[in-house]
């Protein structure tokens, strides 16, 4: 020991003589964080939730478009309205199964409904989905009652005021598309929570994909001609895609370093691919084409747009994994601000 001590003079070892040797935070050899170990947990959500966001968004937005079609389009858009209701019903079918599949304890899915807790977006979403499911089933039954005559039941269904049912379903249908984004945003995952834009991204994206789904349904039913009301849906797609991608770019810009997991690597490539697919889908109907090619073009356009939307849902959900692992992004997302100063500043910490 004495041999080692001799390395330093007597005064060096006595703290009172060393005012310059203050305990101050300084860069350490180990690095500014804890051995690069992420401090956030990876989200548990995988492909089931990405798929649910895709189908749920289409279902909700299709219903909303059907309601608007009845109010604004009248009888000329009656076919569109019927198709929209069918799309809404069919895309809603896989949703409960996907949501239950994702649970750690699937048999306990109904625990979601044991409380009314609107402050929790997932609880609110479950109630919205349940309400919406009831209304969509009712509209589907009504539509079935119009086509098939079941004694007694059909009369009962026809007696239901269709407009009132649609009006009741409208808030729930819009709610489904928006809460999906808000659900991701109100977490501690940096790539989701930095801006108030996730609800908008999901709302716009759902409307665009719903318009494409309705068009796809029409073309699958009668592939020989593009329906005359299709251009009105194309306008919805174009406007919604513009809003969607404008908002995504804004979200990435505002997120700064915290948005890195969405810009780089596999997720960045997927996001770019999604942009390409949806842009191509929006551009296809605008390109000049001989009339006989138009239905096929429209079909491909709708398919590309839906593929792009699915890819977007996939990226947004799965980027949460990379975001939780990227501890630099996570620390950037929790940098002290005026609204969230943290405790280090609050206690008069002096940085050098």
């Amino acid at each position: 020991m004495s041999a080692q001590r001799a390395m330093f003079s007597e005064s060096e070892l006595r703290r009172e003589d060393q005012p310059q040797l203050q305990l101050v935070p300084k860069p350490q050899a180990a690095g500014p964080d804890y051995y690069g170990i992420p401090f956030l947990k990876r989200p548990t959500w995988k492909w089931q939730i990405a798929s649910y966001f895709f189908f749920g968004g289409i279902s909700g937005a299709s219903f909303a478009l059907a309601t608007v079609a009845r109010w604004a389009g009248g009888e000329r858009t009656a076919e569109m309205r019927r198709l929209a209701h069918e799309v809404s019903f069919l895309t809603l079918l896989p949703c409960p199964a996907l949501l239950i599949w994702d649970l750690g304890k699937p048999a306990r899915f109904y625990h979601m409904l044991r409380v009314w807790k609107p402050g929790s977006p997932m609880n609110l979403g479950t109630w919205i989905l349940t309400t919406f499911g009831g209304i969509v089933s009712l509209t589907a039954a009504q539509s079935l009652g119009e086509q098939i005559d079941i004694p007694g039941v059909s009369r009962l269904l026809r007696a239901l005021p269709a407009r009132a049912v649609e009006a009741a379903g409208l808030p729930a249908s819009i709610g489904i598309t928006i809460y999906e984004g808000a659900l991701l945003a109100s977490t501690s995952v940096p790539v989701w929570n930095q801006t108030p834009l996730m609800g908008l991204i999901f709302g716009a994206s759902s409307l665009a994909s719903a318009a494409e789904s309705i068009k796809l349904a029409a073309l699958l039913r009668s592939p020989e001609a593009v329906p005359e009301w299709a251009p009105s849906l194309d306008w919805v797609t174009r406007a919604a895609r513009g809003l969607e991608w404008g908002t995504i770019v804004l979200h990435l810009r505002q997120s700064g370093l915290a948005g890195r997991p969405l810009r780089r690597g596999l997720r960045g490539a997927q996001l770019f691919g999604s942009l390409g697919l949806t842009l191509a889908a929006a551009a296809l109907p605008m390109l000049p084409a001989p009339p006989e090619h138009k239905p096929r073009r429209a079909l491909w356009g709708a398919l590309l747009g839906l593929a792009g939307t699915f890819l977007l849902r996939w990226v947004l959900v799965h980027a949460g994994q990379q975001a939780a692992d990227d501890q630099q992004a996570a620390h950037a997302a929790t940098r002290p601000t005026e609204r969230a100063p943290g405790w280090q500043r609050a206690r008069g910490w002096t940085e050098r």
Partner: protein
Amino acid sequence: MLTFFKTAEAPPPQTPTGFFTDTTLCIGCKACEVACKQWNQLPSDGLNWRGTSYDNTHVLSASTWRHVAFVEQLPAHGERSGQRGIESTWMGDADGSTGQFGRWLMMSDVCKHCQQAPCEEACPTGAILYNEFHNVYVQQDICNGCGYCVSACPFGVLDRGEEDGRVHKCTLCYDRQKDGMTPACAKACPTESIQFGPVEELRERARRRVEELHRRGDSTAYLYGDQPAGEYSALNAFFLLTDTPQTYNLPQAPRRPNARLLPNYLLGLAGTALMLGVAALSMHRAGRAA
């Protein structure tokens, strides 16, 4: 099945309790980890050495509810650190030729039991609640493993167990507290680095400790979580730290996830209303033109 829709009467509220973890007293013995595992009958995680420190658990998880972090601040070779103080450690070679000063920071990490906990706000089943001691508690008979609290927690505390699909975390030894006993980790801690008691009392004690440390020249000591910080609530399990929060793998300034909710809803509604307006306009034109 219907039993879950019945709610039992809540026990009468008691004095809020919590932990004060004073990292300047921690010697890294991991007795808290062992005591926690033993009392709560948690499975082993294996000895997963990373080759970076004596930390073999690395993070809090479904089966690790106390985790001792080992921060080894050793100066790079040939450089002498100016850090000397309570934790300052002599790091000399056997022959004494390259003697350097470094320090070890140890922290026994645990669920922060936030007073306004993001996990409780996120939980869609009501499985997560504040018990009568105002501790954040996961009811294992209710949790359905949706995983929302896992993403909500800004400290990465909650974790879904792979074996049973439910979320597990520190209960602040709810069972022991009910019998008037001290939580296992605090009981086992040999240096009183982990202190358990009524939160108000702990805060007083912690502030006195910081003052004492400052008086003794350790000007870097501060409390992490003893009071609300902007939108984020105070923590019922708070810490005394002597370096940046990142050093201990804690977020500098956690955000309250639910503060993002309303702006997301409102902007989403506004955008959707706008787009439905576009739809109404174009459909109206289609209805007339055709």
